[in-house]
């Protein structure tokens, strides 16, 4: 029998910051990481030297890693990690940072997801994204993730009877949430007819099923609850967290993710049922993936995603608030910062910092991540349950 793992008790997540997104930037990733860490320092009032841990996620930093960033920004942390799990990196940076704090390897860890976006960098990163992409998907039409997720969406629609309107509900509600988020790239409402009439990208994926690549950063600090209280920082606590890689590898096509393997563990750690959650921040690279998370995280059974979105409103004031910042579909996808978006938003929600998009009386929220399409699916899944500090 495996040894029971230690809980995440005593860990605080604080100081959610966003470096405003821009569609294209002439700056490098280092610039965005620098702005993010400066914002963490400004908002928290702590000294730069007090940050003794750095956990970083970025696609566009190459050939540098977190190592080069320490010299670039004049940091001397005693704990360092570089987490290359893209859309799952927010959850995974938090897990690693939390353990470092609990173990005493670091006192205050800056977790940063940041990327730049030059006019041609998205195309270039797709072709060299992974060995498998270079050898076995990019030469086939060079559609990038759009082609892969078109397969996944088409298969899901055929198998479970989802319609484009079902995905439209998700997207329209997220856009409504985005209108309350000053950082969101999209500033206008999205109507269902606009969603349905958008131009086709890779059938059945249309324009508003795709995220807009952009440049920007999201970041937060991880420290002990005690430290957060001493510093007078609004913070949230961690009730449970899971991750999994390359789950269900024998499935011919992706229709369920690693969350399903570990969800019982997640809710057992938190001591709650899914129904106790006040909001979710799902990973929304494509709306079908958000729907699959509703199923695999236990809000409904497999195949009931379409009925679930028909039965709920997913706005911040709705019956099932989802991606209250607008998610990547409406806020934009700033590379690896997309994997931090839900985490930063959840901390804002649970520290009364979400302005007009506040979920009323929220005390528990779930953030999930999904990252890295190396071949025919994303490999990394993770989720965390955050709660209001007592």
């Amino acid at each position, binding site marked *: 029998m495996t040894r029971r793992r230690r809980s995440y008790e005593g860990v605080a997540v604080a100081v959610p910051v966003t470096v405003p997104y821009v569609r294209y930037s002439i700056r490098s990733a280092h610039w965005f990481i620098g702005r993010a860490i400066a914002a963490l320092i400004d908002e928290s009032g702590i000294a730069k030297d007090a940050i003794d841990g750095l956990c970083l996620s970025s696609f566009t930093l190459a050939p540098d890693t977190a190592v080069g960033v320490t010299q670039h920004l004049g940091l001397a942390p005693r704990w360092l990690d570089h987490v290359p799990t893209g859309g799952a990196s927010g959850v995974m940076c938090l897990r690693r940072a939390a353990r470092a704090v609990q173990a005493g390897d670091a006192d205050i860890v800056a977790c940063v997801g940041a990327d730049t976006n030059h006019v041609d960098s*998205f*195309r270039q990163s*797709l*072709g*060299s994204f992974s*060995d*498998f992409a*270079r*050898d*076995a*998907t*990019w*030469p*086939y*039409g*060079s*559609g*990038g993730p*759009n*082609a892969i997720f*078109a*397969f996944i969406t*088409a*298969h899901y629609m*055929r198998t479970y009877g989802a319609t*484009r309107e079902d995905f439209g509900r998700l997207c329209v509600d997220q856009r409504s949430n985005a209108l309350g988020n000053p950082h969101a790239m999209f500033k206008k409402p999205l109507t269902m007819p606009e969603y349905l009439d958008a*131009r*086709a*990208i*890779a*059938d*059945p*994926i249309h324009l508003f099923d795709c995220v807009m690549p952009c440049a920007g950063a999201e970041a937060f600090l991880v420290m002990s609850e005690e430290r957060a209280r001493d510093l007078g920082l609004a913070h949230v606590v961690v009730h449970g967290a899971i991750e999994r890689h390359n789950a269900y*590898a024998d499935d*011919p*096509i992706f229709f369920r993710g690693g969350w399903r393997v570990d969800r019982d563990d997640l809710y057992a750690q938190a001591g709650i049922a899914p129904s106790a959650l006040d909001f979710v921040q799902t990973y929304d690279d494509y709306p079908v993936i958000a729907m699959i998370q509703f199923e695999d995280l236990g809000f409904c059974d497999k195949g009931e995603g379409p009925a679930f979105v028909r039965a709920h409103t997913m706005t911040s004031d709705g019956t099932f608030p989802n991606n209250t910042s607008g998610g990547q579909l409406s806020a934009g996808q700033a590379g690896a910062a997309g994997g931090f978006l839900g985490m930063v938003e959840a901390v804002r929600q649970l520290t009364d910092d979400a302005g007009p998009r506040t979920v009323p009386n929220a005390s528990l929220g779930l953030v999930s991540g999904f990252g890295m399409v190396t*071949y*025919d699916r994303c490999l990394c899944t993770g989720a965390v349950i955050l709660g209001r500090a007592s």
Partner: protein
Amino acid sequence: MTSPVMKTTANTTTRTTTHTTTAPVTAAIDKPRRKNPVLRTRQINLPPGARGRVALGFTAAAAEGRFALQACERCAAVQYPPREACHRCLSTELTWRDQPDGGHLVCTTTLRHSNDLFFRERLPWRLGLVRLDAGPTVMVHLHGEVGGEPGRIRVGARIDRAGMAVLIGYPEQGSAHMADDRMLREMTSDPRFRKVLVTDGKSAVGQAIVRAFVEAGADLVWVGHAEPWKKLGGLDDIGALPQVTLVPLDLTDGRSVTELAGEIAGKVDIVVNNAEVHRTFGIAARRGTDVARAEMDINYFGLLRLAQEFGPALKGRSADGLASATAWVNLLSIYALSSFPTHGTFSASKAAAYSLSQCLRAEMRPAGIRVVNVFPGPIDDDWNQHVPPPKLAPIALANAIVKALRDGVEDVYPGDVAQEWLARWRDNPKVLERELAGEG
């Protein structure tokens, strides 16, 4: 809403009919119209050609027309994409092994947008995800006759315009004109409606090649003949075919090659260099170097002269519409792999030509022109009079060349002897060298 399958029929070069339940049947392509000389000739953009070293094993098999995937010697798992270790048992004993071509079409999509220029110029582009009977799930380019998912499908490997192997999903039962599929025509070098230069029409092999190209629907066949005053049988019959134009061409004469190139190089879509000199000597059987020099002058330097004049012209027209320049065929010999001592100087000239042909292939690749090397065993002609059967009939050799172009194959070893020598050479080239020495 229109289904994805229906949408794929928006296609400018292949007229298709659609039904709600079955896939569209490929319509035969029409002969391309004369192009407007005022318009710029489109230049090629290649599809992505980067591959890891391990993945090149897939291309190596496809170059011979085989569909092979990595199989684990220890646990027999078949895997894709290619890896450095078995994903099941971690063994590194992985072999590229031919696989059954059946599979289950899991889903399809039609790209309306691509990040790559090659595909952007060819949208919409249809793709499928297939669960192979052999095990792995693979992404494929879809033939237009493949219907909607789910259903059975055949999968094969083809060399694409970048010279790299890709997987193609074919209908289980293809129609008569399935080779005219817009996507498939990009991957192959079908002679139909194309203009061909055959460098020597005097030999039995050359005449068989000309007839094979005429039968395959070539629009025009220029047939070279050196020393026109020397009459040989059969040339008049060939010249009487309406598609054929006889042209003076002497590969030993640089000026002759240049003059012909000036007239026709800008129109040729396929070059078939079949001109060769074949004498049956080793080293000691004939004094002096005159015969060996004559072999080299045609078999090696002839190729070099031809490639210098015609190569650049082909490269400039590799995206010139439906009947673009597409391929270069070299008639080599299985003796190019290992010397057949009784035909020693001929073997050496073919080995030199093979090496030069590899160079030509590398230089033509950026333009997407395919170089096809043909390695026959002994051909049933005068110069192999003393070689015992089986010998390759000229017509069989000609048909093998046309088939290679239609199938997009890069290396062809036609006939039983060539196949057997290839197998022996692959097994152990040193052993083959000893065996061939014994046969001399």
